[in-house]
């Protein structure tokens, strides 16, 4: 009996009879945490998801926002593929890409950018490296083959992720109002067409598997629940989808992901207030002898469910044939129940809305943590600088993004390795306008481990700051909320606090959170992951060029930071130099409260955007992992250096969010531009010597670009 007893009783009440085996499995998967958000839906209402530019908010396959002043629509979505990536890192990560790209297709959009945020256990563990290499290779092989550039993302290595890596993938698509499609069935009598790969016995029960803790033997026992990706079919599906849109043949669409055909088809008709009659024997299958439950729930990849007007079914089949894709007319949209027939029997007959929305919410307890004590370690400047700059979380990610095709599509104007990616939106608005988008994605589990709420606030500020530093204005965000077992009150409290913090600061930033994903039960025998609220923020800007992330050597260096700081939570500090959550403490031990966060992040981000737009701004670089120590080191090149002076070491290593180092040739103009919305602190000057000269109180160090490069090259050095 796969369905929990309480759920079983509800289903019996609703149906007035015992569910069939197929129904039992369908309810189990659709009512799983992964599909039904039973432990998180009540928290998600905290997010403000509407706004002037939001066309479609949460609840569809992807959200849709309008590029201000144009007819260009952008789809935006994010997905986790955490459990599969632990069991089989290569295929788990690859199919994560496939899923979020199909979410883009089903809105009638062409995918133009991917961002991946990845979290692993400590880099010095062999198993973390195995997972890391496998995940990156899976993303590389799949994303590169389908021709969608991977332009942004993040990688963090943190203790609590040792038994549970996280793979969060966001995708941006581009479309027009005429081509836009939704996942809401339009009319009874239309046909349901299943298009793409044949259905096999792969990925059975993936949704329910993703809703449990990982057992010790998960790598062997759960492998059948992980799907295998075929990027060639996905690329054909992308092109086929375009061809179907060209001829206006799609009434509505939903990609097949968690819970397979049963999930996609029932959700599609439920959203339109309809039912369906589906003939499971009409599904094109890869292997003989599949039973109804297998056909209904297999998570075979690269499949789409389209609602098609009866007169267009033949043309859809012809186009599928042209792209060597399978195509089955599997049933009809009806006014009745969601009904599936197999071998002359009715194997499912239930209200679609009940399948989609009937799962009751979990009632969960919370237990708040205590504030961390201040217990700071002893360290000397040179030693601390080297350890933090060479920390794998702060180190260069070139080893990663070099394996991703980040240029296909001819849009990439600011490449990975900078604060945010900037991409050209060819053909948006007037021909002469250079409409661009900017993308940043990430979370910092060290921060949220220290203080879930303040850390999550910092994640929101950090991603918005990344955009602003490159001159972009945030437009919308999607979140991927990862946490441990919600049935544990402390774990759930951390998760809920992170959601509160993220929602609160996104609202303060006036950035609507238009979609998201929740992944709970990220527990293993080593315990739950720290709450990890990945936020991907999409922005727009006019013009493709942005200040460099390295100094030119010609200007002065200033730090643009919040005008006023506040404690980000009940356990957070109001001191911006507090060291909680920092890589310094992760390297040297000790504890502290999480630093202060900006009192008015919206005004701050606006001010940072104005600074980036000044002609006298030569370089901008956001301060995040490793604090100013890492930001200053990253500004140095063989040709240009940095000479900076700080009052105390805490200021060098604190990771308080919302700060940008700026190289300017006109500090007065910069001060005028920020007004009262930000504070400006002098740091020193850019130099022509290719070295970082740093004075902190009584201590000073000089590190040249070559030494910095060596420290930052740790991933490539260890893995190649």
């Amino acid at each position, binding site marked *: 009996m796969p369905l929990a007893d309480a759920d079983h009783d509800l289903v019996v009440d609703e149906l007035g009879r015992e569910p069939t085996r197929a129904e039992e499995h369908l309810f189990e998967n659709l009512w799983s945490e992964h599909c039904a958000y039973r432990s998180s839906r009540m928290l998600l209402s905290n997010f403000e998801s509407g706004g002037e530019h939001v066309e479609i908010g949460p609840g569809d396959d992807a959200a849709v926002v309008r590029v201000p002043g144009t007819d260009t629509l952008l789809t935006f979505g994010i997905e986790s593929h955490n459990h599969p990536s632990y069991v089989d890192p290569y295929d788990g990560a690859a199919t994560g890409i496939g899923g979020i790209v199909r979410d883009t297709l089903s809105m009638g959009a062409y995918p133009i950018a991917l961002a991946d945020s990845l979290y692993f256990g400590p880099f010095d563990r062999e198993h973390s490296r195995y997972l890391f290499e496998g995940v990156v*290779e899976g993303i*590389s*092989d799949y994303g*590169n*083959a*389908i*021709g969608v550039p991977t332009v942004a993302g993040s990688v963090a290595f943190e203790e609590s992720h040792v038994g549970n890596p996280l793979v969060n993938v966001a995708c941006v698509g581009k479309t027009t109002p005429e081509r836009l499609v939704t996942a809401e069935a339009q009319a009874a009598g239309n046909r349901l067409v299943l298009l793409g790969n044949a259905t096999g016995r792969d990925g059975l029960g993936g949704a329910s598997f993703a809703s449990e803790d990982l057992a010790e033997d998960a790598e062997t026992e759960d492998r059948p629940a992980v799907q295998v990706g*075929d*990027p*060639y079919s996905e*690329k*054909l599906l992308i*092109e086929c989808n375009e061809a179907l849109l060209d001829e206006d043949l799609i009434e509505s669409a939903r990609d097949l992901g968690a819970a397979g055909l049963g999930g996609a088809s029932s959700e599609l008709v439920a959203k339109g207030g309809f039912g369906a009659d589906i003939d499971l024997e009409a599904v094109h299958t890869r292997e003989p002898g599949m039973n109804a439950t297998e056909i209904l729930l297999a998570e075979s990849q690269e499949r789409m469910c389209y609602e098609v007007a009866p007169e267009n079914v033949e043309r859809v089949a012809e186009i599928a044939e*042209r*792209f*060597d894709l399978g195509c089955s007319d599997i049933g009809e949209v009806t006014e009745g129940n969601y009904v599936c027939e197999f071998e002359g029997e009715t194997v499912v007959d239930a209200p679609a809305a009940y399948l989609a929305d009937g799962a009751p919410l979990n009632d969960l307890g919370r237990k708040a943590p205590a504030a961390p004590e201040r217990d700071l370690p002893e360290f000397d400047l040179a030693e601390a600088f080297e350890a933090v700059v060479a920390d794998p979380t702060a180190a260069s990610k070139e080893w990663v*993004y*070099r*394996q*991703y*095709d*980040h*240029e*296909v*599509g*001819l*849009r*990439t*104007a*600011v490449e990975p390795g900078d604060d945010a990616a900037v991409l*050209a939106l*060819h053909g948006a608005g007037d021909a002469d306008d*250079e409409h661009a988008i900017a993308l940043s994605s990430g979370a910092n589990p060290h921060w949220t481990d220290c203080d879930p709420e303040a850390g999550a606030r910092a994640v929101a500020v950090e991603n918005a700051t990344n955009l602003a530093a490159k001159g972009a204005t945030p437009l919308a965000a999607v979140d991927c909320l990862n946490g441990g077992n919600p049935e544990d009150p402390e774990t759930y409290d951390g998760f809920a606090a992170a959601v509160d913090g993220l929602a609160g600061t996104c609202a303060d930033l006036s950035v609507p959170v238009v979609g998201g994903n929740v992944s709970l039960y990220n527990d293993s025998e080593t315990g739950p992951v720290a709450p990890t609220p990945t936020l991907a923020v999409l922005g727009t800007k006019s013009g*493709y*060029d942005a200040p460099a992330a390295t100094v030119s050597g010609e200007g002065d260096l200033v730090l643009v930071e919040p005008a006023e700081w506040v404690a980000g939570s009940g356990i957070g500090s109001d001191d911006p130099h507090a060291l909680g959550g920092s890589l310094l403490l992760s390297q040297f031990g000790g504890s502290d409260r999480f630093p202060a966060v900006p009192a008015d992040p919206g005004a701050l981000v606006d001010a940072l955007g104005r600074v980036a737009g000044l002609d006298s701004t030569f370089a901008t670089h956001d301060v995040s992992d490793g604090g100013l120590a890492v930001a200053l080191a990253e500004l140095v090149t063989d040709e240009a250096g940095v000479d900076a002076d700080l009052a105390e070491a805490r200021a060098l290593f604190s990771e308080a969010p919302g700060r940008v180092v700026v190289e300017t040739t006109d500090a007065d103009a910069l001060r005028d531009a920020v007004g009262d919305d930000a504070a400006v602190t002098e740091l020193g000057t850019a130099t022509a010597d290719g070295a970082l000269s740093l004075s902190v109180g009584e201590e000073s160090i000089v590190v040249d670009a070559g030494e910095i490069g060596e420290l930052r090259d740790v991933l490539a050095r260890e893995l*190649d």
Partner: protein
Amino acid sequence: MTVSVVQFGGSNCDRDAVRALDRVGVDAERVWHEDGLPADSEGIVLPGGFSYGDYLRAGAMAAHSPVMDEVRAAAEDGTPVLGVCNGAQIGSESRLTPGAFTTNRSARFQCEDVYLRVENAETPWTDAYDEGDVIELPIAHGEGRFEIDDAAYEQLVDDDRVLFRYCDADGNVTDAANPNGSKGNVAGILGERENVAVLMPHPERAALAELGGSTDGQGVLEGFA
């Protein structure tokens, strides 16, 4: 002139090629491989991507598709043919050009900018440059290591059919500047006649000035002008 950019299943630089060719004033259109070449095609691009998923060997399946018979015939008639990245692999697999492109020395996919030294500036594809010029183009491939037997390599060099070699910023052809382990740092070559060229780097990705990077790829694309 209308250039046909042949789209195989799995091609993914076809749209980019059309956009970049348009930028240098060359009219181009995408042609689905099963539809065959239009009668009026006056040039052919085999674009980058992963034709047929590159599941056998990169370019191997596409080389056997019927449209390649048309491409070979057109090439023999003197129609300009340019293979880029996967298109270079297809060109090599279909014997339009000698040698083979195989797994990078790193055994990983590499997406990065490289420097190339122009070895022969007396071809339509390199007419925009001078011999010895150093240009900057991006690469994005996992199987770009050029291999060929020694005798054929000597012949290729003697016939002046090497177009580009990987080099450092100063034009030195060194092992350190060889991103994938290609024999002789070879990045691009001519077919038996100069109307056919293949290269692993992407000239179409260095053609749009507004993106802020190199525009050195325009010269190669002007081979169609």
